[in-house]
Structure formats: structure tokens, C-alpha cells
């Protein structure tokens, strides 16, 4: 019976190709508009490290002066999203977390060993040793370094895959030398392509969407090389005076990202108490004038706090869905017109013995077919729309960059994955049924004799 109804549906669509095209087109446009918005939202709203949802935490402390104007972003109730060096250094010593990461991003010119490659600007993550294990960074060659290497500091470097390809042509570079800011570093590891989106561990750049750094060096080089940050620096106290790099790192200026990983979720409360105690102690020295407002939050809360997904994305998705509703209403009108124009045939079928259920089911199958055809057309339009967006919106991200990771990141932002495609198909089915339910019900309610004379 179902195949019979599908055949009837296809015949019905062929019978009135213009109306059918309009219905399929209306659904396709609605699906495409909503799917583009959903794809962008989905790319921004995914959890970058779900397997550590309960153990990986960002640490913040409210170091700001007790001044209402000393706010941050759109959420003055939150403490700054970075720490000052004295505080980061102090709490880094805690053994409550199984791992702690203190880090920041810097940028310097690199002089390649290979004379054929010209010096170029590169991004450097200056970090403590636990970075790689804390964020599950995959290696293709070698490893990271030890905590002892942070202290000395050891002249070791970990390269991104892109940088290894650029400097050493994909060869195993472990043990080879790289010159950074005039200093020779020995390569100890090369990480595989790794691109957590959002780039949750450092929200400084591009609203949380950026590629990881090219070089990773031990944190001790911060002081040894006087390597300043290439990101937001906020001096949150009026007492802060920056007369030199050595002075800068002792001031109440926040510029370091700080993350901890716990063995078990319950360690978080112990660590919160530890941080609160530390801040209370600092208050006795005249620092941290505000009420205790230290936050230790998991990745999802972190992304929510700092609006990484953003109200714009949510609004775009809302508008996309509203547009889809408008398309559904248009399609409903077109379907009603189409079904009523074919009412004499339905009346005839009723006379021949079709029950009301038979007629409603036959028309519902037709609306499902319309919905699916509209959905598939809509998915094709979505692919086209996303390709256009890649050119129009994200081309600026790619300007001047030869980093394939950056291209991959942009593609990931406008890529429809299987769940989104499945959602699109489900949405098109739902759209078809919503648009066709009333017309199908209405046609099923018609008395069979009504149209027989006019057939």
C-alpha cells in the first residue's frame, strides 16, 4: 500500500509541475536558510573535549579593584578570564590537581635552519609541561617536556605538524635545532594536526576560534627571554605600574591562562577552597579588594560564561527557523490549493471504496515525498550557501596564511557533519508533514459525493 501511495504521490507531483516545484522550492529555501544557521551554530557550540567534561577546569580569580568601572566585557559579574603571574605562579604549586597548566601566547620571528625558507612570523605557546597531557594533544614524533624543563628552562621546543612540514619537509625533526628569538631550541616533539574548536584553552583570539600555535616552549623562557604576551593584557589595579618586563610580571595585570585537571570531579571543591584561602590570604596584603569571586569552571561553563557561541549565532538560528516556519505556511497554502484542485479524484476514490484513512494516508505520503524532495534540494542549497559563506565571511581569516590548519578550521566552521545532515532530513520530513497535515485532513473530511458531478 505504501509503494502504491508513493507512486500516486509522484504521479500527483507530475500532474501539476509548477505547483509542485513551488512547494518543493519553498521547503528547500526554508531548509537551506535554517540549515546554514544550524550548521554555523553547531560548529560553534560543540564541546571540544567532552571526555574531560567533569575533570578539566579553567581557574579565575577576581583581582580587580573594587571599582564599578573596573568591569570586563559584557559580564562584569565574572572575574577576568586570565590570571596575573604572581597568582598563577603561587597556585601552580598546588598538588590537588593532577595537572596544572600556566601559559600564554607569544609571537616572534623565526629564522629557519633551511636557508631556502625566509624568516617568518610565528605564534608561540609558552606553557608549563602539563599542557600536552591536559589537553590531550596528539604527537606524531617525540613528546613534550618535563616540569623540570620548565624551571631550568630547557631549550626544547615542540612543533606543530604544519611548522614541521614547513621547516623540515615532514621529516622526523626530533633532535634538530630551531632558532627562536635568536636562541637555539632542540625539537623534542611534533604534534599531529590538532584543532579544538572553539579554541577553549585560550579565548584571546577571534572570539575563541583560531588554530593552535606553531611552537610550544617551556614556561621558564618567559622570564629568560623576556617574552611578552601576544594577547589581552589587563591591568586591573590602579597601582599597577609597568616600567619594565620584570616589573610587568609582578604587577596586578592579568594575561595568563590557567587550567587544572582533577583526578576526580570532587577534587574541584577542595581546589576551590584552596584558591579561596589563597585569595583571603592575599587580601591581608591589600590585594583582591573585592568579595571572594573565584571561579573554577568546566569547559562547557567556561564557553557559556564568555559567550563563545554568541547571541548572534543563536539569533541567526532563530531567524533561520522563523523563516522555515514562513516557508511551511506558504507550502501549506500551496498544498491546500493543490489537494483541493484534485478533490474530485479523491471523491472518486472514496466512491470506489477508499476509506477516509486511505485518502488521508495517500495525501500524507505525498507531503512526505514533497518534504523529502524539498529537504534534499535544501541540503544542496545549504552546501552552496556554506561554500558562499566560506568565501564571503571567512576569506579574511585565510589572507596571508599558508597554514593548512587554518583552511581546515574554516572548512570545519562551514561543514555539515552527519548529525546536521540527519537533522536536515528530519527537519524536511517534519516540515512536509506540518505543511501537509491540515490539507490532507481537510481532503479526507470531504463527502465523497461532493465533487463527483464535477469530475
Amino acid at each position, binding site marked *: 500500500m505504501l509503494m502504491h501511495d508513493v507512486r500516486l504521490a509522484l504521479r500527483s507531483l507530475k500532474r501539476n509541475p509548477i505547483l509542485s516545484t513551488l512547494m518543493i522550492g519553498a521547503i528547500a529555501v526554508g531548509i537551506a536558510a535554517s540549515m546554514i544557521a544550524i550548521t554555523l551554530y553547531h560548529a560553534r557550540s560543540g564541546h571540544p573535549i567532552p571526555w574531560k567534561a567533569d575533570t578539566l577546569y579553567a581557574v579565575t580569580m577576581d583581582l580587580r579593584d573594587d571599582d564599578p568601572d573596573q568591569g570586563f566585557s559584557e559580564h562584569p559579574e565574572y572575574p577576568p578570564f586570565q590570571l596575573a603571574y604572581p597568582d598563577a605562579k603561587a597556585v601552580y604549586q598546588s598538588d590537588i590537581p593532577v595537572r596544572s597548566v600556566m601559559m600564554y601566547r607569544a609571537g616572534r620571528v623565526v629564522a629557519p635552519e633551511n636557508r631556502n625558507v625566509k624568516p617568518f612570523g610565528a605564534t608561540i605557546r609558552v606553557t608549563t609541561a602539563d599542557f600536552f597531557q591536559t589537553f590531550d594533544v596528539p604527537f606524531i614524533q617525540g613528546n613534550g617536556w618535563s616540569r623540570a624543563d620548565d624551571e631550568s628552562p630547557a631549550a626544547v621546543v615542540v612543533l606543530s605538524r604544519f611548522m614541521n612540514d614547513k621547516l623540515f619537509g615532514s621529516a622526523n625533526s626530533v633532535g634538530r635545532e630551531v632558532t627562536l628569538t635568536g636562541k637555539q631550541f632542540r625539537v623534542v616533539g611534533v604534534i599531529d594536526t590538532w584543532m579544538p574548536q572553539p579554541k577553549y584553552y585560550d579565548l584571546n583570539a577571534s572570539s575563541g576560534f583560531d588554530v593552535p600555535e606553531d611552537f610550544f616552549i617551556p614556561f621558564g623562557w618567559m622570564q629568560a627571554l623576556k617574552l611578552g604576551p601576544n594577547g589581552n593584557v589587563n591591568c586591573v589595579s590602579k597601582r599597577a605600574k609597568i616600567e619594565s618586563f620584570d616589573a610587568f610580571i609582578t604587577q596586578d595585570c592579568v594575561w595568563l591562562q590557567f587550567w587544572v585537571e582533577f583526578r576526580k570531579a570532587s577534587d574541584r571543591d577542595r581546589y576551590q577552597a584552596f584558591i579561596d584561602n589563597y585569595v583571603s590570604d592575599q587580601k591581608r596584603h591589600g590585594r583582591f579588594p573585592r568579595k571572594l569571586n573565584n571561579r573554577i569552571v568546566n569547559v562547557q561553563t567556561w564557553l557559556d560564561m564568555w559567550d563563545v557561541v554568541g547571541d548572534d549565532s543563536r539569533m541567526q538560528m532563530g531567524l533561520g527557523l522563523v523563516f522555515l516556519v514562513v516557508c511551511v505556511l506558504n507550502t501549506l497554502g500551496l498544498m491546500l490549493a493543490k489537494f483541493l484542485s484534485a478533490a474530485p479524484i479523491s471523491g*472518486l*476514490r472514496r*466512491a470506489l*471504496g477508499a476509506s477516509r484513512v*486511505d485518502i488521508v494516508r495517500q495525501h500524507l505520503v505525498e507531503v512526505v515525498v514533497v518534504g523529502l524532495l524539498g529537504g534534499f534540494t535544501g541540503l544542496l542549497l545549504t552546501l552552496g550557501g556554506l561554500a558562499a559563506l566560506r568565501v564571503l565571511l571567512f576569506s579574511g581569516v585565510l589572507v596571508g596564511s599558508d597554514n593548512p590548519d587554518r583552511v581546515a578550521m574554516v572548512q570545519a566552521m562551514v561543514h555539515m557533519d552527519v548529525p546536521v545532515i540527519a537533522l536536515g532530513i528530519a527537519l524536511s520530513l517534519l516540515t512536509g508533514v506540518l505543511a501537509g497535515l491540515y490539507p490532507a485532513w481537510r481532503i479526507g473530511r470531504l463527502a465523497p459525493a461532493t465533487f*463527483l458531478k464535477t469530475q
Partner: protein
Amino acid sequence: MIDMQGISKVFRTDVVQTHALRNFSLRVEPGEFVAITGHSGSGKTTFLNVAGLLEEFDAGHYQLDGQDVSRLTDNQRSRIRNEKIGFIFQGFNLIPDLNIYDNVDAPLHYRRMPGAERHRRITASLERVGLTARMKHIPAQLSGGQQQRAAIARAISGEPRVILADEPTGNLDTTMSNQIMELLQSINAGGTTILMVTHNPELAQKAHRQVHIVDGQIDQIHEFNPLRAAEAAVGASA
């Protein structure tokens, strides 16, 4: 076969009530061929629609093939239409985008009949009306007479107990009309009861009885061949 007693049917709008059938009583025996005549608006088609369970009625009692059909659900009415009644319309009412084979198949399909049995009945019906060679044609490719024969094939494919024909020759010329009438007579000769609405007095006289309707009531009944009617009734009941 058909036993209507005191049937009334009123069409209502916000401002007017139209009594299409008034206290209408008629008994049709199995195997009978009854012509229904009357002026336009007299209630002929309404009677046929009520008899064919296409319309409900407001008062009275109706037994079809011994079954009280006064208070059936929509599904039950559909099933009885499908199994016991065949319809033939003035405008043929073939589904335009289906070929003749599929048109004849339509009522059998709603009976959920197995494919092989459907095929047997379709080919037998088309053979009976002489359209086997045209079974893959769509209605628009056939003449009026051929289309009406296809409609008759569809009506008889379900082997109904009664055929309701609403001016089946109304759109045909005399020659075609006579051919269709002969076909209906031969079907009736096989024991199928036929009620035929017609404006054509010559065709009406070929029936066993003519029932003339005026203002929703039976005005006159002419018995042209009561002997044949009685034989048919006896034959059918035997």
C-alpha cells in the same frame, strides 16, 4: 436488494433548506434493472448517492443486500461501497493520469486483493467490455464510448451486487449509447442489479421498471417487463 423506507434528505445552508428526498420508499429486487427518471433537480442523483452510500440521509430506513446501512461508520460504508456497489458516471470519472488497467485496478486495490487475483479480474473485465487492446492507454487517448466502457469495466471488476449508473450515456451519441445500454443489459443478465438514472425515455424503456421522481418523491412507476424482473428476482434469489 435495495429497500428504502421513508428516506428523507435535506440540504441545508445558512439561509435555505432544500428537501432533496421526501419520505422516499423504493424496493428493488435482486437482478432487477431499474431506470430512474425525472427532471433536473428532482432528486435522482441524490437518490443514487444515498443508495450508493455516498451521502447520509436524515430520516428513514435503508437495507442494502439485507444489511441495515442506516448507522454505519465511515469505514463500514467505504467497505460496502467497495465490495457491493459499482459506480458508473455520466462524465466517466476515470483518473486522468492512470492508464485503463490501473483505473480498473483502483477499487480492487482498496479491497487489499492479492495482485494475481486483481490481474485476473482486470483482464477479465476489460475483455468483457472489449478494451483489452487499450489497457495501457490513458483515458484521454480513448473515445467517449471507450472511456465509458472502461468505467463499466472498473464497475464490474469488483463483482458488485449492484451497479449505480448516473446518466451513463449522457455524454455519448446514439450509437454509443445503444452499445453501452447493451453492455449494461448483458451485465444485468448475469444477475447484477442495476439502477440507472437517465433522461432518455427510449433507454428507460429497456429497463424492467422506470421510476419517475418529482420533487424528491416517486411520482410514477412503469413496469415495462415485469415478467423479466420477476424472473431475475427469482434467479438471483435462487
